[in-house]
């Protein structure tokens, strides 16, 4: 077994528009993500970071390149539930109650009913939503809905958690609270987390490493090691080192920005 949870080799993604013009969205991305690592894919909107995540998840096929997830081909990894995925919108089924939504991936795995329920309740506890098991998604706030999405991603106990800008639609207070929750879950489960975001501070606060992607086409400009101590509490947000790291990454983007002009 490899020491890496995810290996990307020379990933290239080219789209063709209606006029047959080719547009390169991802250009030779190579990245190895270690097991148990919290890594962020950071970049401006339209830089292809979501596309990259979807390639890892086998929701899109790259034009060229090789993807291995948990030591398997991307498709095999998807079919054997090696990862759980959290989406930008909660992507809940509105006709299912909270508990039924969390059970969905287990139904695909043909887990018996009683065990499905038991495991879903367990996840409900972890995301702190006890008492809402029979509510419909519409009755919950945005933050609570996203927590249901996280519980659903965790319920199959995958090694890897893929998160596509999961908190970008939430207000600052809810977001900070969910950051804390997510770090706690990560610490307790030791999962590999790949976190897509366009928010520099979010990426710095959460991650072990931040991959800085530039747009048009997306290239991996830098991979920044975040040296902030763990476990990270909100107090970290006030430290000088945190500010320095955020500014350092901000500089990388600005440099790129002026280069392109």
């Amino acid at each position: 077994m490899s020491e890496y949870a995810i290996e990307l080799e020379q990933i290239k993604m080219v789209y063709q528009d209606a006029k047959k013009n080719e547009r390169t969205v991802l250009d030779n991305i190579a990245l190895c993500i270690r097991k148990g690592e919290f890594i962020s894919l950071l970049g401006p909107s339209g830089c292809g970071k979501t596309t990259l995540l979807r390639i890892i998840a086998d929701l899109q096929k790259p034009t060229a390149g090789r993807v291995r997830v948990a030591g398997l081909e991307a498709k095999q990894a998807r079919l054997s539930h090696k990862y759980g995925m959290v989406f930008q919108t909660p992507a809940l089924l509105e006709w299912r109650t909270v508990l039924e939504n969390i059970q969905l991936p287990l139904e695909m795995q043909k887990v018996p009913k009683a065990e499905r329920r038991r495991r879903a309740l367990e996840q409900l506890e972890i995301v702190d939503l006890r008492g809402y098991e029979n509510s419909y998604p519409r009755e919950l706030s945005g933050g609570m809905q996203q927590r249901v999405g996280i519980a659903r991603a965790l319920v199959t106990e995958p090694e890897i958690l893929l998160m596509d800008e999961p908190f970008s639609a939430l207000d600052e207070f809810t977001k900070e609270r969910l950051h804390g929750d997510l770090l706690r879950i990560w610490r307790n489960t030791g999962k590999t987390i790949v976190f897509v975001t366009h928010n520099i501070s979010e990426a710095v606060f959460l991650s072990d490493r931040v991959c800085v992607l530039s747009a048009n086409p997306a290239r991996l400009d830098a991979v920044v090691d975040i040296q902030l101590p763990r476990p990270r509490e909100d107090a970290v947000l006030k430290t000088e080192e945190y500010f320095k790291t955020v500014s350092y990454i901000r500089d990388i983007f600005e440099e790129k920005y002026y280069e392109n002009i």
Partner: protein
Amino acid sequence: MKTYKKTLSAALWLICVLIIWELAAYILANVLHDPLAAKKLPGLASIAVSFAQHCKTLCAQAGITVSYAAAGFIIGSLIGIILAVIMSISGLCEKMILPYLLAAQMIPVLGLAPIIFGLFKNIAVSRIVISAYITFFPVSVNLLSGLKSAEENLTAMMRAYAAGKRQLYIKLLFPHAVPYLFTGLKISAPTAVTAAILVDTLSAKDGIGYVIIYTLYGGGTTGQFWPAIIIAALLGLFSFFIISAIEYICVPWKRQSEEVSA
């Protein structure tokens, strides 16, 4: 508060219509001295009396029409559902079927009914066929748009959790399309009843449409005409409310959200 205002507005409308009706009937009979006033526009009281008199027979006739309409409606819905599923699974089938469905809808029922009757030589079958014919199109088109309108991120989510095509349909697309299906059913139900009534008038020997046409031209039992018209109108409403009630039971997640927002 909202429902109270709704009820009040309906009641006010009803009262207005009744007053105007009564006024018009009075003017026709007593001011214009129309000898056929009692037949053209009878007073409310006389309608009420004949309604009470003939209620039992009229309801029995209405029951006959409704049972044919219901049979046609169920058959038509099933055909509509099957067509929609086939079209959603296969793009080729959609391209092959949909334009012809549309073309079929262009044939006026008024013209089609005699053809169908001539074809089957059986009024009972004709009523069912016409009701089914009226039903299947709205059901099919609405369900198809429901099956095709699931958000991309939901289908992506299903794939991320390793759902196959069958599971995608059973767990996402069908439940998502249920409200759309009911939209189609609610459009179809009253028109299926109207269609059955129309075929009644062709050459049936029973049904509420038969009562209407017979009393209109037959003369003998004039008193039944207006009550029959009222019952025919109520049948359409009744069918709509039945489907709405079933929808209320089958789509609890929409119901919940309405209660929250109200």
